[in-house]
């Protein structure tokens, strides 16, 4: 829907709109801007995270551009980003399947059931995944070994998914199987709920099959939600590092195979206390995110 245009001369009657923005902006101004701007500010400094800061101009950026490790970290995150595009699919499918349950009560139950795992603490998730990948006791090898997949790939009987440089990215991709992001599912669902049932009915009469309904009706009509989830995913993947930190350690595993920019930033800021450099990485990362978000917002559009 195009938004209503309020012109300058209308402000006489529309000024209360600005009032509605005040609480939001006030909190942001109070708590968000100083930290964010200090991040930008300190990216031009050699800064230890405390009061000692030496202005060094663009040296941090200069260094960042010459830092092969940072370059590699962007490649890693690029691969993860592409993988995550595919990892969005199960959420969409799940949302659609839930949505298509005809009984209101069952749909409620399913939604609830799917939401419940959100309470699973991070620590338990990590525990499970660590043991999933464990070379000797782990489930992954236990499943793959009898299937002959390990031999086929030439990985030996006990590949260390988190301990071998070449296996780290595959492990990070497998991570989270079956890749159902619950918040994503809910966002899709609330988009799906808004599709009038008459559109479905019409599609049914037009002879749209279950697959066609997905591609022709549901997917285009939840484009807004896909866009939202894409943005969340972009932010999550590019800024995120918690999972890699616990799985692989602060260095991102052997050869830094899992070193993503966020983790590198964390490492620089907290392990090495080169907070200025971390801020500079943050700024670069920020530009990449902005560009991706922009592309996403421009090209993923509801066609209404």
């Amino acid at each position, binding site marked *: 829907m195009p938004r209503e245009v309020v012109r300058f001369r209308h402000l006489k009657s529309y000024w209360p709109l600005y009032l509605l923005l005040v609480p939001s902006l006030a909190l942001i101004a109070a708590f968000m801007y100083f930290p964010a701007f200090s991040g930008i500010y300190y990216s031009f400094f*050699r800064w*230890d*995270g*405390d*009061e*000692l*800061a*030496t202005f060094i101009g663009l040296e941090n950026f200069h*260094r960042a551009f010459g830092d*092969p*490790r940072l370059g590699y970290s962007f490649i890693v995150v690029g691969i993860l980003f592409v993988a995550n595009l595919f990892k969005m699919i199960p959420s969409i499918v799940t949302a659609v399947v839930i949505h298509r349950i005809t009984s209101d009560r069952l749909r409620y139950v399913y939604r609830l059931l799917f939401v419940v795992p959100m309470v699973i603490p991070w620590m338990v998730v990590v*525990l499970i995944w*660590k*043991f999933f990948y*464990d*070379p*000797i*006791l782990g489930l992954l090898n236990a499943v793959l070994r009898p299937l002959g997949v390990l031999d086929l790939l030439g990985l*030996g*009987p*006990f*590949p*260390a*998914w*988190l*301990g*071998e*440089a070449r296996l780290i990215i595959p492990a990070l991709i497998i991570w989270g199987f079956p890749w159902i992001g619950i918040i994503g599912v809910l966002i899709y669902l609330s988009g799906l709920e808004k599709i009038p049932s008459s559109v479905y009915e019409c599609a049914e009469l037009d002879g749209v099959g279950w697959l066609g309904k997905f591609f022709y009706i549901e997917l285009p009509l939840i484009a807004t939600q896909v866009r939202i989830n894409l943005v969340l995913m972009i932010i999550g993947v590019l800024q995120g590092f918690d999972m890699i930190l616990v799985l*692989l*350690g602060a*260095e*991102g*595993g*052997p*050869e*830094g195979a899992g070193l993503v920019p966020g983790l590198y930033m964390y*490492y620089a800021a*907290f*392990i*090495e*206390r*080169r907070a200025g450099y971390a801020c500079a990485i943050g700024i670069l990362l920020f530009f990449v995110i902005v560009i991706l978000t922009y592309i996403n917002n421009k090209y993923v559009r509801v066609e209404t």
Partner: protein
Amino acid sequence: NHMRGRGRVGEREKTVLRIAHWQLEPGIREALDWVIGEYQELHPDVEIRQILIPEEGYFRWVNTQLIGRTAPDMIECGLGGSPELWRMFYARYFLPLDEYVDEPNPYNQGTVLEDVSWRETYFDDMLGGYEETLQTYFRVPLSAFTLRLYYNADMVGEVWDEDERGTPFPRTYEEFVELCELLQEQQGEGFVPISGSSYSFDRIIHVYRTALTAGYHDRLDTDYDGTVSRLESAAPLFSGRLDMREEGAIRATFELLREIAEYSPPGATAMGRDEADFLFLQERAAMMPTGSWDYSSLMERAEGQFTLAVAEMPLPSPDHPRYGPYVTGPPTEAHTQGAFPFAITRTSPNADIALDFLQFASSLKYNEALNEQMFWLPAIGEAQPREELEPFTPRVEGYAQTVEFEAPGTAMSFRHTLPVFLAGTHDYETFVDRYMASFRRELPDQGVPEHIRDMNRTLDQQKRYGSIRRAAISGAAGADAILTGDPAEQHMRIMEAYVGQRASRDHEVHTWVEHARYYHEQR
């Protein structure tokens, strides 16, 4: 209870002190509470509260509290962050203890240690509280930790006949390798002789590196402070005076480590402690190196399943064809771990009480009792550890660490390249080439060139004050004669020397000058 007593009618407001640490496991808090309780009996107007901070957030917590000037009075030191960072913290935020360590601990009155200086009551002369580079005491350790190799005696016994071999466990590295082979052979696939994690591997590296490269000490301790700091060992590596490819001892160290890695789980350097415990406790591994802090819990978990035994990490005998020539001896276990060390923050309004409390907790009687409760090793020399912990008693004789491969700023490179080498993916030369490439790329930012450049300029100063200091510390006869008199003046000079050494990093200068000034003003 911390809430109690605060508002009690008619009672004087209590002085409240806070002590922060990350030992959240059961027993520690209670033990500490017990000591606190004892102390409060003596000093009814003081209340000490524990702040328990989980390991996960500890460093960030300390960081922000220190920067925000909201830190509690006493903080447990050493977790997270690099040694350089902590050094900076000490210099900037913590109270030097030098003037107290040479006085007796008042709470030792009436014991054998009555007249002994506080420093000397420690089994290691309080080295665990000493910051070599700053040549200052900052921390008060309350415990000691040592590293041992735990093993499943039943499993080892099956292949290692004590009667035949004479010892229940291999004494030399050669025998140890043999044992690993035997175990592997007997247990087959899905078994590894040594369970390990990144956590324990760091400690193994320390043991063997020290054992094989102790000979470098004299060559590398360029500032004569008695230890080889990371900068001191990074400088020659960087300048090429110490070439990892050429130095036989270094090569031997890494090759030995690779051999051990073969008997460890694949990718052990990326594994967590829990996974290592699982392998060991589920008898998929026969041995696991870890510290004394794990003893009680491992004992408890192994009970009824197998016999848990403890040995020292075996070193290669001098006859070992490959490593023998380099082995000097085991590493010293003095100050190997921070060992529950507390430092007093400068922002504390009650630093004197904090110090008093720490002295109380490190007195012979209470330190023994405290560690008894915690199931840890006491830090005071005369204190008796629990019987079960006998095998862990720290061995003070031994060699100090010399070559440190992780220089400031290159730790990441080291951790990237080492596992790949250990996994046997490529040979030693490739490993060195790769590591040195990033080492050279990253080190310049960390002040090493400046260190090298300024070395000579500052060396004289350093030497002079260093020797004075050491003389004073060791109470050498006639030291007083050399002293310039005013200890504050003396301390400032030392700090300035350090500052000069790092002069190129202006913010550091700021720190050290500030520190020195503070110290001066205190007088």
